[in-house]
């Protein structure tokens, strides 16, 4: 089948649009928190949740009993809940003689399970309100008339013949289990192709692309041929993925207008893999993606081919093989289809399962119809009884048992309608009530007094990442001495691509929303050897484990070494790891190359590299010893290869080549060794990326200082504190690192900013802008280890001679703050030993970081709920319990709104991603999270799967958001509070379309605290309203955790 270019383009665009709802999945080496429903952010939060339920089968809210627990613990106030129920009731007519508000409050707060809303295990209720009323009054149910077969068929066709893939419908009617088998085959195919070095043997022809490579292998892949015998016939149809897709869709008789929704459903089944492929195909800098290309069109072609092969295989047993045949079956046998749907959809009452199965096997139409009717009648009675019982219990909880027995049928019907409506909306009601309570508590805790400005120069000023884990350390640091702290996104406003010492690839150290233009490199003056003996041995052992035959021998020969390792890591992780780290070579002191190269310098580097390559080429090709390769010869060859000089007398003379051989060698130099004008230009271009010009450095430093309002009164020490985490045996390690640094540690960004800010030329220019950094102020980079709470200072060798005298005091205070931080944080973690005491909390934290069996080295960003943009004085006097992103901002230095726009565009959006990732991983960890870490296996070195084969697990593991199976993270939308004049903030928000959309669609809650008027405004129901927090006399502000 050959398709026109137009048709191919149409298929590609359909798949592109269909794939937009699939959340991107970044490789886990740099875990990026993101909203699993990011593709649906154009919808309102509520609608997106409903759409997410359809696409990903994920719940959008917690179960009622968990909200009830929050209610009982006063994390949801009665007042907020009652207000929202009242608001809900305003949409309905009152029912005479019934205090419906009490009924609904009783329903929400006292009844654990929903009364009416169907979940995945229930089918639609067949009981009418008259039936329920009859059961409540203790009357017999009247005989039901015959069911309307036409209505039944229509209903069934509606539910069966929607946009779900054909095999799903076949599975639910014929128990064919195609879906399960198909997923298995697709996952195996993806694992084979996308592997990044985990497998000993790679799939052949991967450079040709996913579909082509897979197609080639499938012709002789017994595993696939065995299950879908007709796959070769299908693959013969076309060599292009688009051609195959069209063929399959036509064979399945799917109407063309439904193709896009069909594609969307297909992509959402394995949305982890689809998200990874979608990300990969768009990541131009991703080496593996360039080497082994594959996109969603390939993925869909593979999936549809396998699906058709499996359907064809089953069709040999007489089941429908396309949509038309399926429709015909349902229309011909509506009752049988209904019973099959319930039996194989696992929704039938267990009592009927065996009878229905036997009847279906006999294939006796009359018997099936009779059984269907009896089953429906039984279901009607059963549904009525269950619902009547539930309503009676609800009446009891609402103290209205007497009224229920005398309630007229029409009133009962209205009551049931309202209950059903409430239960459909209750998730939003609970969520809004919970958020309102959290907002009240925050606003009650704020100091009403205006911030006190002091001209006294603090001992230290410290810039921390806005990360919620910095809040604790900042609070304790401020508590132990004369410290002033600021919050700024952890890349410190410097987006940079970075090449670390000993690594050959660039890492983007900035939020994924940005693409860095500049490249920085880490260099050392010491000779850096990557492999000392122990490291080499370690690598060799890993290689032995990964090949096919050697593990058998390896276990026998050196298995005991692993035993030694195991005992050490398990019984004494701290001591053992300390000893073991001594065996590895330590990283030497390094310098960062951050200054731009001049053109002449870059040119000189390119020339030097070219000369070295030419010399190597001569040595390799003609086996000439290095000492005999003269500079003149190399220069002559280089010039010839670059086309500058075509005469090569030295080449002919010294290497004894004839003209043809010389020409051929020069040709090879150009092609194989890349000594040609084009590559030279490319090298110059790449070198041009290295470093920052002086102007850029000034801009970055100025922007960072202005963004946090630090433009005067600089201290002697200005710490620039990046953060990272430390854990063992943890594929999710980068999820605990700095999100603003693209899931990497923040050390290098801190070092880069400090280097820039310490440069006299930069300071001189800043002085011209009115930012006067005194000569005795020194920016010191530091690293906050969030797992151990330790803070380590860097680049102290660059410290001016006037500063070391103060270092002891600084270090002492940092250690004190770290210990206090550990004492506050560590008790919430699980430990093998007893609960930690004040004395050993830091040691326990350290053990936790080194324990390879620890599935929860720290809680990470769990329990995040607030994003506060404003001066530190606003939140300084009370604890936020590590739950708030704190971004410093002083509106007085931002008259043009540019700084606020930057904060909204970058940090706030990243904060919202983090918040939503935690939200959805908590409310439905199975679908939006990644389940328990205990069952995880690393897949292809870029993701994890549950067990040996599953979709790539996206989201956060259960151990990050749940404690003992219950939510530890309290799922709420990000409550964003901005301290600035009302008009100032509103104007800024309306200039940032992405944030405006998030706010309008209810993905974040936005509050403005106007310091000029003292009023708080909240964006709610599409409009700004003044917000008045209820007074809470029980609230103790100072140093009390906001135990929300």
């Amino acid at each position, binding site marked *: 089948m050959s398709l026109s270019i137009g048709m191919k383009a149409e298929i590609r665009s359909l798949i592109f649009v269909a794939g937009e709802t699939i959340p991107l999945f970044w490789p886990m080496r740099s875990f990026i928190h993101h909203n699993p429903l990011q593709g649906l952010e154009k919808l309102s939060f509520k609608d997106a949740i409903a759409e997410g339920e359809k696409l990903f089968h994920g719940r959008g809210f917690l179960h009622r009993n968990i909200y009830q627990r929050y209610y009982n613990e006063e994390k949801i106030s009665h007042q907020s809940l009652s207000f929202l129920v009242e608001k809900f009731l305003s949409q309905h007519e009152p029912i005479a003689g019934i205090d419906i508000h009490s009924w609904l409050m009783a329903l929400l707060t006292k009844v654990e*399970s929903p009364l009416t809303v169907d979940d*995945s295990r229930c089918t639609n209720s067949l009981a009418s309100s008259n039936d329920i009323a009859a059961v409540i009054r203790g009357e017999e149910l009247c005989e039901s008339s015959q069911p309307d077969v036409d209505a039944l068929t229509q209903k069934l066709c509606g539910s069966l013949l929607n946009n779900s893939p054909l095999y799903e419908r076949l599975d639910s009617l014929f128990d064919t289990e195609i879906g399960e088998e198909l997923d298995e085959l697709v996952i195996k195919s993806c694992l084979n192709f996308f592997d990044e070095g985990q497998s000993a043997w790679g799939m052949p022809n991967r450079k040709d692309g996913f579909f082509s490579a897979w197609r080639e292998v499938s012709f002789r892949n017994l595993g696939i041929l065995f299950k879908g015998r007709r796959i070769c016939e299908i693959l013969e149809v076309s060599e292009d993925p688009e051609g195959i897709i069209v063929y399959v869709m036509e064979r399945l008789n799917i109407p063309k207008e439904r193709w896009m929704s069909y594609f969307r459903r297909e992509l959402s089944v394995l949305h982890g893999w689809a998200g990874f492929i979608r990300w990969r195909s768009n990541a131009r800098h991703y080496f593996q993606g360039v080497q082994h290309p594959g996109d969603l069109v390939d993925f869909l072609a593979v999936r549809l081919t396998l699906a058709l092969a499996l359907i064809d295989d089953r069709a040999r047993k007489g089941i429908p093989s396309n949509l038309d045949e399926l429709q015909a079956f349902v229309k011909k046998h509506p009752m049988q289809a209904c019973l099959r749907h319930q039996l194989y959809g696992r929704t039938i009452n*267990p009592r*009927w*399962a*065996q009878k229905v199965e036997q009847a279906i096997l006999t294939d006796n139409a009359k018997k099936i119809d009779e059984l269907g009717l009896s089953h429906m009648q039984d279901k009607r009675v059963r549904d009525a009884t269950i619902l009547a019982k539930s309503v009676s219990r609800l009446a009891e909880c609402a103290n209205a048992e007497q009224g229920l027995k005398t309630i007229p049928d029409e009133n009962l019907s209205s009551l049931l309608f309202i209950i059903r409506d409430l239960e459909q909306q209750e998730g939003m009601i609970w969520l809004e009530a919970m958020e309102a309570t959290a907002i009240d508590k925050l606003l009650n805790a704020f100091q009403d007094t205006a911030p006190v400005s002091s001209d006294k120069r603090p001992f230290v000023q410290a810039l921390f990442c806005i990360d919620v884990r910095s809040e604790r350390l900042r609070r304790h640091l401020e508590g132990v001495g004369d410290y002033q702290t600021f919050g700024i996104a952890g890349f410190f406003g410097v987006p940079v691509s970075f090449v670390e010492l000993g690594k050959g690839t660039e890492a983007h150290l900035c939020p994924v929303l940005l693409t860095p233009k500049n490249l920085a490199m880490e260099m050392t003056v010491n000779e850096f050897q990557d492999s000392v003996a122990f490291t080499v041995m370690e690598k060799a052992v890993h290689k032995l484990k990964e090949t096919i035959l050697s593990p058998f021998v390896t276990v026998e020969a050196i298995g005991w070494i692993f035993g030694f390792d195991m005992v050490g890591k398990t019984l004494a992780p701290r001591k053992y790891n300390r000893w073991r780290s001594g065996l590895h070579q330590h990283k030497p002191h390094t310098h960062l190359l951050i200054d731009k190269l001049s053109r002449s310098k870059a040119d000189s580097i390119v020339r030097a590299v070219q000369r070295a390559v030419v010399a190597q080429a001569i040595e390799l090709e003609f086996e000439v010893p290095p000492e005999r390769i003269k500079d003149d010869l190399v220069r002559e060859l280089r010039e010839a290869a670059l086309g500058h000089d075509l005469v090569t007398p030295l080449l002919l003379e010294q290497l004894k080549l004839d003209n043809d051989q010389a020409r051929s060698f020069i040709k090879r130099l150009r092609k194989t060794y890349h000594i040609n004008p084009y590559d030279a230009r490319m090298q110059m271009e790449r070198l041009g990326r290295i470093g920052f010009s002086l102007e850029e450095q000034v801009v970055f430093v100025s922007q960072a200082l202005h963004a946090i309002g630090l433009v005067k009164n600089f201290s002697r020490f200005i710490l620039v504190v990046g953060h990272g985490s430390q854990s063992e045996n943890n594929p999710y390690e980068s999820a605990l690192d700095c999100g603003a640094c693209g899931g990497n540690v923040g050390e290098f960004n801190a070092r880069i900013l400090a280097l820039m800010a310490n440069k006299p030329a930069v300071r001189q220019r800043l002085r011209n802008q009115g930012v006067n950094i005194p000569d005795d102020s020194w920016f010191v980079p530091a690293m906050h280890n969030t797992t151990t709470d330790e803070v380590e200072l860097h680049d102290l060798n660059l410290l001016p001679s006037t500063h070391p005298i103060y270092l002891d005091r600084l270090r002492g205070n940092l250690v004190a703050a770290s210990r206090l931080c550990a004492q506050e944080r560590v008790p919430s973690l699980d430990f093998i030993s007893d609960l930690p005491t004040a004395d050993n909390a830091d040691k326990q934290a350290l053990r936790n970081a080194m324990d390879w069996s620890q599935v929860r080295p720290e809680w990470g960003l769990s329990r995040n709920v607030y994003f506060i943009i404003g001066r530190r004085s606003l939140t300084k006097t009370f604890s936020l319990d590590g739950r708030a992103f704190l971004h410093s901002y002083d509106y007085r230095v931002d008259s043009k709104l540019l700084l606020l726009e930057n904060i909204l565009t970058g940090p706030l959006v990243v904060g919202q991603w983090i918040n939503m990732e935690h939200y959805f991983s908590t409310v439905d960890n199975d679908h939006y999270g990644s389940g328990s870490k205990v069952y995880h296996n690393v897949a292809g070195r870029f993701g994890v799967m549950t067990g040996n084969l599953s979709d790539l697990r996206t989201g956060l593991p259960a151990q990050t958001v749940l404690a003992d199976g219950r939510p530890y993270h309290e799922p709420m939308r990000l409550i964003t509070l901005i301290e600035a004049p009302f008009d100032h903030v509103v104007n800024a928000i309306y200039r940032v379309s992405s944030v405006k959309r998030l706010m309008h669609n209810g993905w974040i809650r936005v509050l403005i605290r106007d310091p000029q008027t003292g009023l708080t405004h909240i964006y709610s129901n599409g409009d700004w309203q003044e917000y008045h927090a209820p007074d809470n006399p029980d609230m103790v502000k100072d140093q009390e955790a906001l135990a929300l």
Partner: protein
Amino acid sequence: MQSTSLLLAAFFLPLFPMSIVFNFVFQRASSAWIRVPVLLVWPLPGLWLLESDSSQIGDTLVLWALLTSILYSFRTVVVKELSVWTGFIATSAWSLLWTAVYLGARFDDLMMHAFAFSLPLALLAILVARLERQYESAYAGVVTGLAQEQPRMTGLFVVVMLAVIGSPLFPSFFSLLSNINNVVMVMPSIAFAIVLVWLLWSWSGIRLLHELVVGDPAVIQYEDISQSMAMLFILSFFLLVAGGLYMSEVML
């Protein structure tokens, strides 16, 4: 041996099609109080009848017994209703007793073989009856997620199922092993048939466990089995293992 006796024996150590009667009776009996005695007692008359004169059992009868056993074990692979599955496994297991009789096992040993199969099945019947009381049926796949809902019950279920399908240390394992051991050198085809039956039991048993234990739990939550009851079951597991070890001494 009288043909009447043989016919009666084929009724109690069920051979197809007489096995239909046993399975009909077993499925009609919904209470554990009936099912447990039926499982324990049903094969005994058959053994007495055969024991009186085992010489009359010819190759054809053994072949018939093996075919019955394979047929029922094969059927267990697709059955999801646990009470039906229990009956089919009992039929399949008791048919294998014909082989033991054919090989000249002593009456005491035959009794041990019979109880090695029946005792775990009786325990299973108790658990199945409990499930039926709660869910009105024990249809695996429709009743799912037992592990989340009733962890104690699930634990017992798993162990009982392992005992039924002839896992090591349980008596059924040693019974099957001794049968295979006795016949493998002289009539390898019989040994092969027994291994096939054993494989099918394991396959169907694990499949049922998978359907029953994992998955989403039921909407209505039921109470887990009591601790005292669980302790009784654990005690009986120990007794079964002890019995198994004794059989290994006596028969292997």
